[in-house]
């Protein structure tokens, strides 16, 4: 089996060019990352902002309990 060092030497000898990140690559990278980050941010904003309560076992009330009037005035 060829060693990694020998494989690397052979690959280098074959001459693979190594440009840095160009404008096209940068644009693709930023747009791709922007799309997934934007989608995640949008989803998290909606999830964290939603008022619907979480009732996975289906045994709780249909709506979250509303604090009583006196409770609201007292601030809890």
């Amino acid at each position, binding site marked *: 089996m060829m060693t990694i060092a020998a494989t690397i030497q052979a*690959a280098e000898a074959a001459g693979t*060019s190594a440009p*840095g990140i160009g404008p096209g*690559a940068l644009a*693709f990278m930023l747009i791709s990352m922007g799309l*997934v980050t934007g989608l995640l941010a949008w989803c998290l904003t909606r999830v964290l902002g939603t008022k619907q309560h979480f009732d*996975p076992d289906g*045994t709780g009330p249909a709506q979250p309990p509303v604090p009583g009037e006196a409770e609201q005035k007292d601030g809890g």
Partner: protein
Amino acid sequence: MSSATEATHTREHWGTRIGLILAMAGNAVGLGNFLRFPVQAANNGGGTFMIPYFISFILLGIPLMWMEWGIGRYGGRYGHGTVPGMFDKLWRSPIAKYVGVLGVIMPLIVFVYYTVIVGWLLGFSFFSITGGYFGMDADGVRVFLGSFQDIHDTSIHGGWVGFLFYGITIAVVVRILSKGISGGIEKLALYGMPILFLFAVLLMIRVLTLPETALGSPSQGLGFVWTPDWGALGNASVWLAAAGQVFFTLSLGMGTIQTYSSFLSKDDDITLTGLTTASTNEFAEVVLGGTIAIPAAVTFFGVAGATAIAAGGTFDLGIVAMGVVFQNLPGGQAIGQLFAFAWFFLLFIAGITSSVALASPAMAFMQEEFGFTRKNVALGVGALALVLGLANIWWLRFGFLDEWDFWAGTFGLVLGGFVEVMIIRFAFGVDEFWEELHLGADLRVPLFFKFVLKWLTPAFLTGLLGWWIVDAAWPMLIMEGVPSENIPFVWLSRFFMLGLVAVGCVLINRAWADKVQPETPIDETVAP
């Protein structure tokens, strides 16, 4: 109280929505996000790979993901946390439950060999802290890894070392599973996923700020991954590679999403929650996965070197190359050891959250269909995995694990996805499913996706399955290129898998013979 109503109260449930999102993301985020994605992108058109990738995400990934969430929640309403019971309710055919065996046995098979791999990552987390492989070059680390993986190669490690880390991994998984959905899996996700993302962000920053070396730079690494090759867009294999990557990264066709979502009630949103899970996975893949392993490897090995190493396989890149990268970080060995630990431990967390998800269908099946206690099933699944995992470790060099990986972990997923799409499309009905999907929804899905679910996803998946059969499954089936000494072990590997499927079918038969199935959803049953 009727038995059906009793079942409602005995089924487990998620504690918090964020816990569910992180657990589902933990199921999806795995080694593929950090190791498979950048290699696929670099080999299939660089930046232009993202065009078919995003199209596949919209036409295949998101619709299938919603479909699996919907199937899971629907089945859970009938007291079924696994695919056999779900298919039985969706299709109403006597064979449906047997077709669903795929959704229990496939994840179990993947669980067995995946925990073997997760054990390697735990081992390398340990070796990073102790500096076990520091001072070795790439060839030295490869020998070090080989001796650790192969129980018969005692040139560096005793045969028991690899098995020890595998045993610890199984013990951790069993412990988490025995704590249940809310107390085990959700807690693991709530603590594990933030640590994973923290480590990944730290590594990304470290890699992108590395100084240029004589061989390369992080900028060249990013260029290698992202430089667009417009000619690749005309290549069918690039489109299929992108579709495959989307399929695997979201853990579709496995049966795990259905089990997790079965612990929801009909009033719980699945549209927005599902999309949040998918986008969390995409963030881990595109942003974090695209900026760590390849740029780091290119910086220290050059493009030619990184390509040569990656050609040796995922683990040559993720373990061997990265093992050398961390030895050469500025700041000395201690800093290198810390970053190496962060890398291997983040992969370990990604692996352990996925392992727990993979074991969940088998857990739910034995608990719900046979009434076994959670702890007993967890111990049973752990013991089975330990025995079958030993077979994978023992015969690793003969391609035993590779055979399982292909049939259960690659082809099986596409097949599983294809079957469920066809059941929804032709047996249950897309219109009915659309209504089911929107019960309790926080997000109204655009009607465009109904068209996609009805026509494009089935067509896309049929094409993907056809391509897999011609391109990979047939050569694999006829053992093309398999060394003659491996052939008996490949047959043995297949015999094990078929045996597990047969046992699964027998268990399904017994479960349905012994139990009266509810005709209406449990949550609509009125207690007398």
